[in-house]
């Protein structure tokens, strides 16, 4: 079969389109960084998902954690006693930080979690910042080639800043829009 097995829409058509930045009340998603399954359950009241997300993150931590040739290099980045020796399965060993938390994001529909979730291991660096691996997914998916194990910071709270001006984009658009 060369077509999608199913194609459903979550929100389109079900609600009038609101062009505001902050209308994530009834739907949208829930994201959190948790240091334990218990902390996750306390926040989400969803024990099954928290356990699954933790297990999946722990599994990914062994393959997606940053890799260092020796313990000292790893500890310089992640702190004393925060690193462990791992094996890549091919007989090569390396050092990587221990998973210190996990990230969970779920879709919410009318306040309850929809099926499916996204999780990732989180690591705390020696400055106290949280990170998680960047894009996962090896070859064979919709993207050709893997994407390495770059780390991206997790920012728990959105960054707010004073806007000094608006309207500096969009003047080239005709009435028919900009796509083609």
């Amino acid at each position, binding site marked *: 079969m*060369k*077509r*999608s097995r199913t*194609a459903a*829409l*979550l*929100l*389109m*058509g079900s609600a009038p*389109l609101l*062009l*505001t*930045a*902050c*209308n*994530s009340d009834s739907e*949208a*998603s829930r994201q959190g960084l948790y240091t334990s399954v218990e902390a996750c359950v306390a926040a989400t009241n969803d024990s099954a998902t928290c356990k699954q997300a933790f297990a999946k993150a722990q599994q990914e931590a062994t393959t997606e954690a940053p890799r260092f040739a020796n313990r000292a290099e790893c500890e310089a980045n992640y702190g004393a006693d925060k690193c462990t020796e791992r094996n890549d399965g091919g007989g090569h060993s390396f050092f990587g930080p221990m998973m210190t938390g996990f990230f969970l*994001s*779920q*879709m919410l529909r009318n306040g309850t979690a929809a099926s499916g*979730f*996204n999780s*990732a291991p989180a690591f705390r660096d020696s400055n106290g910042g949280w990170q*998680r*691996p*960047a*894009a*996962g*997914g090896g070859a064979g*998916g*919709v*993207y*050709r080639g893997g*994407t390495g194990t*770059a780390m*991206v910071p997790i*920012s728990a709270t*959105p*960054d*707010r*800043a*004073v*806007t*000094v*001006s*608006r*309207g*500096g*984009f*969009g*003047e*080239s*658009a005709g*009435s*028919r*829009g*900009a*796509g*083609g």
Partner: protein
Amino acid sequence: MRRVACAERADWRAKAAACGFGFHTIDDAPYWDETAYYAFSLREIERDIEAPTEELHAMALDMVGRVVGSERDMERLAIPEGFRDWIAASWRERAPHLYGRMDFAYDGTGPAKLYELNYDTPTSLFEAAFFQWQWLEDQLAAGALPAGADQFNSIQESLVEAFGTIARSIARPFRLAAVRGSTEDQGTVAYLRDCALQAGIDCEQLAIEDIGITADGRYTDLDDQVIGCLFKLYPLEDLFREPFGRHLPRSGLQLIEPAWKAILSNKGILPLLWEAHAGHPNLLPATFDDGGELPRGWVRKPLHSREGANIAMRLPDGRELATGGPYGGPCIRQACQPLGAFDGRYPLIGSWVVGDRACGMGLREDATPITKDSACFVPHVIVEEARGVLIA
């Protein structure tokens, strides 16, 4: 490849309304047209559309790698100097991309010929990925199509998979923006947001005109949150030259499509591809335009033009066709490959690439050989060819 007349679903307008497809009729002219469909064999789809799309996509990405290392090529593509290093860096970092559409001339008789890449702001996505899919399911259920009919269209599945794959490299907060006044663009972005949400990515939509700037050159949404990643259904080259554009390279803003797509959404990619792969069966001869008189059998297109605007065509018999529009600047020339006619209509194949996968197709047909924004979207099916049996 055949064009087959068929009865519309009686309730398709209600179905369009129910799923938020607000632009099926544009300025009182029909855009979604299900009074006919195009039928392809599986072999035509796999050999003539899917495989060439994957191959050309790989060739195009290789070309990006070459162009970012060449001042001369950047110059030929008229990429503004102040943005070149930033574009090159976005390629080195492999800033994630989401989707693109190749337009092909194809009539079932020879190789599909690439007209252009729409790799920055492709539209006609919702109607190809979702509404066309729903049409097929409905018509199969109603017995209006041959049993077992299929469609080259796993676009939505691929979009959700792509968002899921790049979810962790999308900086938050994630915002999607399009021009406020365009129902079509807003609909396309609403659909992409839906796909992102299905992949578990929290995101909101805003008008491109509402984006704000801070004193230190970062971009904000209406809630004054600094935007982490912006999906913009708005041409990169327009962002570059507008008042807020100069902040882009140092703003820290992640863009989807990323900055390196400026090389592929530029029609200058066509002569570059021809120079590197002259004679490729899916490419048309192309050169950079020197401004001279257009010879017979050639088409002139601006480096940046959309929806078939500002195209000049000199047919092999000397007749000239041209479309108006707002675009100017440097042009390319491409060998004229007229679209095939089916029942007096000229279908253009839009072949979708999500991530790096060729995953679907949408056809737009116009009453003239130049496909403009007046073209109608017509659904397609894949049917097995009758073998020695005539099915009336």
